[in-house]
């Protein structure tokens, strides 16, 4: 195995332990598992109603939770917690210099850190998607659940949600890793991004595409109906009324964005200095 591969594996091993086992990361698990709470309630109190037509309601309910809460809140803030800490957290702990004093190229360090972050984020957030999926649909009974998954659209929907969650982690993760390297207080650019993503619904069509949430929404398999009276209300901030992009285009665009941002992060890392007192 080449040296840089062994180094990346070593970085992942060090950082994964910190991400998965750190007490200060507990809120990320809670955030990822939060959608399960209403689903468990739904499961407990909706057991008597297993009519076939309710499965369609659950498909809509899942889509609402996924698009309004999971992508915009859970994954967004989860990635803030995971990826910003990869560099900025170690600067605050005064332990980043141990990496910088190892015979490792800074580009390899950025790659290793990103891979460790993305590994943790994928396990947490994609794992939660699968739990939510089973949580909301399994109470319809295994037979109905089985036919919904295949030959019904369930399996392809699940795959689309997993792809959207994964690309959200990659897209937001790369941006927050870069922000952690670039800014002393990376929460400020994160807040600006949150506002931008939230305002996206009221921006002109061209500007809507300059966001991550637009491309993620394009990957989601179920489009949300506009609630009655939503026009002109706060709902406008959350709803996209332009055509979604094809899934392949959306996926490639998000991957290209992440690659571009990671290159910027690697360039930044090459000139990184350790001056903890100033940080």
């Amino acid at each position, binding site marked *: 195995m080449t040296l840089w591969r062994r180094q990346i594996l070593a970085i992942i091993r060090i950082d994964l332990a910190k991400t998965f086992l750190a007490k200060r990361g507990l809120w990320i698990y809670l955030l990822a598992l939060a959608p399960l709470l209403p689903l468990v309630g739904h499961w407990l109190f909706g057991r008597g109603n297993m009519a076939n037509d309710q499965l369609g309601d659950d498909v809509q309910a899942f889509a609402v939770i996924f698009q309004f809460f999971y992508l915009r809140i859970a994954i967004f803030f989860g990635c803030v917690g995971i990826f910003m800490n990869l560099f900025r957290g170690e600067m605050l702990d005064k332990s980043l210099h141990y990496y910088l004093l*190892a015979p490792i190229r800074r580009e390899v360090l950025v790659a290793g850190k990103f891979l460790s972050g993305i590994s943790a984020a994928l396990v947490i957030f994609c794992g939660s998607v699968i739990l939510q999926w089973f949580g909301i649909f399994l109470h319809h009974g295994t037979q109905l659940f089985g036919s919904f998954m295949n030959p019904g659209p369930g399996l392809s929907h699940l795959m689309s949600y997993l792809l959207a969650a994964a690309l959200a982690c990659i897209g937001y993760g790369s941006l927050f890793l870069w922000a952690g390297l670039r800014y002393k207080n990376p929460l400020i650019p994160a807040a600006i991004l949150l506002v931008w993503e939230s305002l996206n619904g009221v921006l002109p069509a061209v500007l809507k595409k300059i966001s991550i949430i637009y491309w993620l929404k394009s990957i989601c398999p179920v489009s949300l109906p506009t609630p009655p009276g939503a026009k002109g209300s706060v709902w406008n901030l959350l709803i996209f009324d332009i055509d979604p992009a094809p899934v392949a285009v959306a996926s490639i665009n998000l991957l290209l964005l992440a690659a571009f941002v990671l290159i910027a992060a690697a360039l930044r890392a090459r000139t990184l200095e350790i001056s903890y007192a100033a940080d």
Partner: protein
Amino acid sequence: MSSDIVFDNISKFYGEILGVNKVNLTIPPGITSLVGPNGSGKTTLMNLAAGLLRPTRGSVEICGISPGDPERYFRITGYATQYDGFPKGLTGYQFVHAYLRLFGFSPSDTERLAWDAIDRAGLREAAPRKIAGYSKGMRQRIKLAQAIAHKPKVLILDEPLNGLDPLARAETIALFRQLGQEGSHVLISSHILHEVDLISDQVVMMSQGYVVAEGQIRGVRDEISDQPMQILIRCDKPEYLASQLFDKEQVVEAKLHADRQGLLVRTRSAESFYKLLNHIALDGVSIESVAPADDDAQSVYEYLIGNTGDTK
């Protein structure tokens, strides 16, 4: 290829604030101490040597390699910083082991090197415990173990004796000596000047971002011509000897030692004073010893930098 640490006209500014300025140094193998007051630029110089800071001007090379080539540079360099930060949740062994893996060693070599370093730092018993429970001295020693674990040719240590108890200090100084004798460069910053005397083959004295003196302490002392040399003479008749010396032109000052068992003489020419002393010794004074009293780091430091403030 040079085997030295070379600072070539290196400067570092933090915005408008001077870190170090126009430093030209060539440091040979052995133990070199960086001495200077707070803010004199010692840590900046060490961080530049370790590649943690980028110079505003100039360059640094170790054995002909620059920090821009990290895969070679950090294989021969180890640095124990003064930062008291550690990755959370690790034991002493896990800490040394985890960062050794970044060097690409095999698992068995990594384990062996980690235990070797931990043994040299005297922490085998504490190694399975979490670092969060370590004393200051133990944290200093585990940092030292981490810095030496890959057997670097150049070891940079920022205040490595801080927080160590007397026994650990003695053991650590012995380790530095051993590393120096093995041909390594050991670059140490310390504010405990009598330990600098004990440890160092050479010193670099810094003040306000500039190097004010470098070399072996005695050599540096010889070059301070505006300060008369101080010589301590142990003898059986110090009062008589003082009376004999008062009117001699070679002697600037003569005073009895605090224990009244000797005489402290200040002279502008040690050589002519020794000749004079030979004559006086023939005159019935039994001289036990004659030794320079101000060619230690403390004296040289006070002559060059002054004794205002501490030396950290």
